[in-house]
């Protein structure tokens, strides 16, 4: 049996339903909520603020520090033990690298901008959801950014190239599966996160990336709208002075 039709009836290039909101955590300097299918991410930005320990400070610019964490009950199976593990540390690091190209922290020497990403429920694609949420939260915190970074996973399930794999597709075992999370900067048409596990040919990968870029453009619009909605007057267009 080959995988010809997605189990949830989506078209190959179609993402799951997305919901995004900015300014959800009053304590934070910037924050966001991003939901794609059953994967939910909160992101909070604190900073620029004083960085300790001192040896981590950079006198030429501010430091971006991301912290990705799954809540203990957010995994598909057993409880996830709280605290950092090798997986969450790696994801934190690639999240930082995905966002760094768009953000300008040169005004904040020796300081740090902390981004905390927390997931209350996941169904694959959690690092991409985290990057999308973090990106909205950083803009919400008033930081200087060339563009919002958008991220989605693409990949191959059996012979089909698809966008935004869910857990069931990632776990498909009647054929080869490849999972390729990407982050896309639309302003410069560049990729800032690229990972892959599974089996895929170069041609399939390139096709997947093109599909992912298109999906990211749509996600980018949703992210921008989330930021604007925060300030929009529910009673009409406030722009009319």
């Amino acid at each position, binding site marked *: 049996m080959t995988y010809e039709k997605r189990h949830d009836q989506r078209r190959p290039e179609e993402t799951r339903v997305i919901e995004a909101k900015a300014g959800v955590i009053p304590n934070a300097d910037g924050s966001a909520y991003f939901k794609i299918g059953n994967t939910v991410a909160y992101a909070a930005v604190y900073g620029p603020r004083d960085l300790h320990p001192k040896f981590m400070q950079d006198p030429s610019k501010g430091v971006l520090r991301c912290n990705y964490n799954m809540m203990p009950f957010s995994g598909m199976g057993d409880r996830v033990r709280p605290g950092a593990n090798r997986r969450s540390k790696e994801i934190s690091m690639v999240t930082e690298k995905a966002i760094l190209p768009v953000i300008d922290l040169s005004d904040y*020497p020796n300081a740090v901008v902390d981004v905390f990403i927390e997931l209350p429920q996941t169904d694959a694609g959690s690092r991409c959801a985290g990057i999308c949420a973090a990106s909205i939260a950083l803009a919400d915190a008033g930081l200087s950014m060339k563009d919002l970074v958008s991220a989605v996973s693409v990949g191959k399930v059996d012979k089909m190239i698809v966008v935004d794999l869910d857990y069931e597709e990632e776990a498909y075992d009647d054929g080869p599966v490849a999972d390729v999370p990407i982050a896309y900067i639309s302003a410069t048409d560049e990729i800032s996160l690229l990972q892959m596990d599974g089996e895929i040919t170069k041609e399939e990968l390139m096709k997947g990336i093109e599909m992912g870029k298109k999906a990211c453009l749509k996600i980018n619009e949703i992210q921008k709208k989330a930021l604007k909605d925060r300030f929009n007057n529910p009673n009409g267009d406030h722009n009319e002075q």
Partner: protein
Amino acid sequence: MSKLEIKDKQVVVPGEMLAEGMDYLPGFGTYRDKDKIIANRLGIADIQGRALKIIPLSGRYIPKNNDVVIGKVFDITFSGWRLDINSAYSGMLILKDATTEYIARGADLTQYYSLGDYLVCKITNVTSQKLVDLSMKGPGLKKLGKGRIISVNPHKVPRIIGKQGSMVNMIKNLTKCWVIVGQNGLIWLQGKPSEEVIAIKAIRKIESESHLPGLTERIKAFLESIVSDKSKKQDTTKQDATKQDTKPDKRPDTKPEGESQ
């Protein structure tokens, strides 16, 4: 042929194209990418002729020279006091800028300003590495007495102050509270407890609605409705209130920088 993609005073977000063509000039919060001008901050677009800039709506306070801020003493050193100014960078108040008095070497500095004290002070220098010098020499600069400190979005401070201080003066007049607004987003209030609550509510309302038109009228109506409401049932607290009113040391009714925007 240049084309403007946005309207004046519209909310824009990073990555959003503001204009196409070389006729427009990129200002604060924007950058040029070939013939396009793109926003790199969340804020309100401000179009002044050919110049495009963004007035930010959010973000932490970044120290600026000549700003009058409210700071909290958190450390005392040989040479002076270190203040938390609600920013990534703390400010340093050295002995010679601290008072008009002569402070002898080795004096007990807590006699002047102690840990936990709030000071209204002025930023006199910010280096490229964001070392911040503070001074207490100038009109309206002083140690704050008892009251409440609240923290607001520093980008809303100009709106809370209003044109020539009109907004903050309206709050003061209608609530009979002393109010001092620091450019760093810290606000000190002192008045009758129930009036302080009204003043705080008005400030919070300005904070959340400042980007909507007709702000002054709305805040005025809001304050008048509550104040008249309260005065009807105020009799019970009146005694305590009069006791309080006579007590506060009469400070000059100042506020830092009646700047407006």
